[in-house]
């Protein structure tokens, strides 16, 4: 037990920001579902790029451009291997999860017609709701919502009945950012495919907390953000099956995505560049590669088990508090806990936790329909990552009790 915690503390020591003090108190960072902190090697990689490699990619004949291009494309290969994709041209660099979903809604959406149906779930982030509403306005498709149960799990039976010949796409989150529910995406993908629909998995929350293998899952699209797996912001990934990406029209026009341009006609570049118009976030892509290198360098089995232990410990301690209600009680859940205490507003608790050095998220977590479902204005969400520890959970619980006593 001791050796294990020593190993996890070794991982923690690679994240310099965690030593920070906030309002004179040691920082307890429990907002990992919003973004993760960065290991020193990712921070160093960004610095090295700008101090010795910076140049534009894919077009320069000079040395620097070739080095940067090589590093950027190496990162693509690393990402491909990390998520188990078959080919690197199935890895499209994006700005993040939101950008990936918008790309698909726009591009795949062009291939949809009036009356076609896209299924999402009641626990989606606004990023996986609004792009489909925009598409509904543009193309007359219908967005339908798979309901959930009170424990925050998906109503699979109703989902079965919703699938039909009009269903073109099921776009669903792997893990709920608000409730922590891990959805049975293997089952969902199989059922959707049987009905002839494609499947897009929003992996924003899952990429950090488990192994993802797109080949095993057999999903058609998988999107995630770099900053949620210890990489920089402004970079993300869209994985798509080559056969589908080939059929889809370009998303944006500009440099890099073209083969030949004239004023009469333009022919598009091949995958993945067809979907990567303009100078990309080069350093973001490279440093995301470094973040995945970090993940490959650690014992993820131990790290993920550690996260689950933290969740179990935190939930046990939270439930000792009077009138505390946890939202999202699925048996299969990631390391985050959303809760409210009696009628106290989550903003009030969040404010008082902040003054005690505890960083949590409060509010609707960009899932307003889900808040409406539970008839609450928001929740307090504590989300754990592999570098957090039990002592931090104790500090959090202590600070929470103090906040409650002040507010009661």
């Amino acid at each position, binding site marked *: 037990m001791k050796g294990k915690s020593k190993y996890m503390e070794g991982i923690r020591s690679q994240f310099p920001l965690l030593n920070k003090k906030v*309002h004179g108190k040691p920082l307890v960072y429990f907002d990992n579902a919003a973004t993760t902190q960065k290991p020193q090697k990712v921070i160093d990689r960004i610095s090295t790029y700008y101090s010795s490699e910076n140049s534009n990619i894919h077009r320069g004949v000079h040395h620097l451009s070739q080095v940067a291009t090589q590093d950027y494309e190496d990162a693509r290969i690393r990402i491909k291997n990390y998520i188990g994709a078959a080919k690197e041209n199935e890895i499209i660099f994006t700005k993040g999860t939101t950008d990936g979903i918008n790309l698909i809604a726009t591009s795949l959406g062009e291939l949809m017609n009036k009356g076609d149906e896209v299924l999402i779930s009641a626990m989606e982030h606004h990023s996986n709701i609004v792009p489909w509403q925009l598409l509904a306005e543009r193309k007359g498709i219908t967005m339908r919502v798979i309901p959930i149960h009170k424990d925050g799990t998906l109503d699979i039976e109703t989902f079965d009945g919703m699938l039909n010949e009009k269903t073109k796409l099921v776009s669903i989150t792997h893990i709920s950012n608000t409730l922590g529910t891990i959805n049975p995406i293997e089952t969902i993908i199989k059922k959707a495919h049987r009905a002839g629909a494609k499947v897009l998995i929003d992996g924003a929350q899952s990429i950090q907390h488990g192994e993802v293998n797109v080949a095993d899952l057999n999903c058609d699209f998988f999107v995630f953000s770099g900053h949620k797996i210890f990489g920089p912001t402004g970079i993300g990934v869209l994985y798509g099956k080559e056969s589908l990406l080939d059929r889809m029209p370009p998303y944006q026009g500009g440099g890099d995505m073209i083969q030949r341009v004239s004023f009469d006609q333009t022919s598009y570049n091949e995958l993945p560049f067809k979907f990567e118009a303009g100078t990309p976030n080069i350093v973001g892509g490279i440093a995301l590669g470094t973040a995945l290198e970090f993940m490959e360098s650690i014992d993820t089995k131990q790290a993920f088990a550690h996260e689950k232990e933290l969740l179990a410990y935190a939930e046990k301690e939270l439930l000792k508090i009077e009138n505390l209600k946890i939202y999202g009680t699925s048996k299969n859940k990631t390391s985050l806990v959303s809760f409210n205490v009696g009628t*106290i*507003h989550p*903003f*009030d608790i*969040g*404010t*008082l936790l902040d*003054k*005690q050095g505890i960083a949590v998220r*409060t*509010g*609707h977590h960009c899932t307003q329909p889900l808040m409406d479902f539970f008839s609450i*204005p*928001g929740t307090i969400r504590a989300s754990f990552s592999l570098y957090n520890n039990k002592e931090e959970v104790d500090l959090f619980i202590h600070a929470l009790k*103090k906040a409650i006593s*002040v*507010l009661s």
Partner: protein
Amino acid sequence: MIESFNEKQDAIIADFQVFDDWMDKYEMIIDLGKEIQGITVDKRKDEQLIDGCQSRVWLKAEIDNKRMSFSADSDAIITKGIIALLIAVYNGEKPETIVKEDLYFIDQIGLQNHLSPTRANGLLEMVKRMKLEALKHV
């Protein structure tokens, strides 16, 4: 004798100066939030609502004998406590004073982040609306 606008601000700053600990400052804000009358749920109107991302605020403005009078409420008690401070300073003032004079006490007592766009608790918008309501009478 009615205190001047800045005297009211200075009095609040002095009240807060006795506290070193942030939790104590917030306890005072929370007490103020509990004391102020606010607008009861049945009297709240849609046009009074300022929908912040984190908390919601309702604001009602009136003018009587050339002096502004505000009442407001929020679903979050800390927000409501800060509302109480803003109302204490603005109520009974001439519209011209509210539009022109600098609101400095919030900064001085260290609550400026509650009035920043990132806080999204409706307070920044509330102050803007208070000034706009006053502007109607200038």
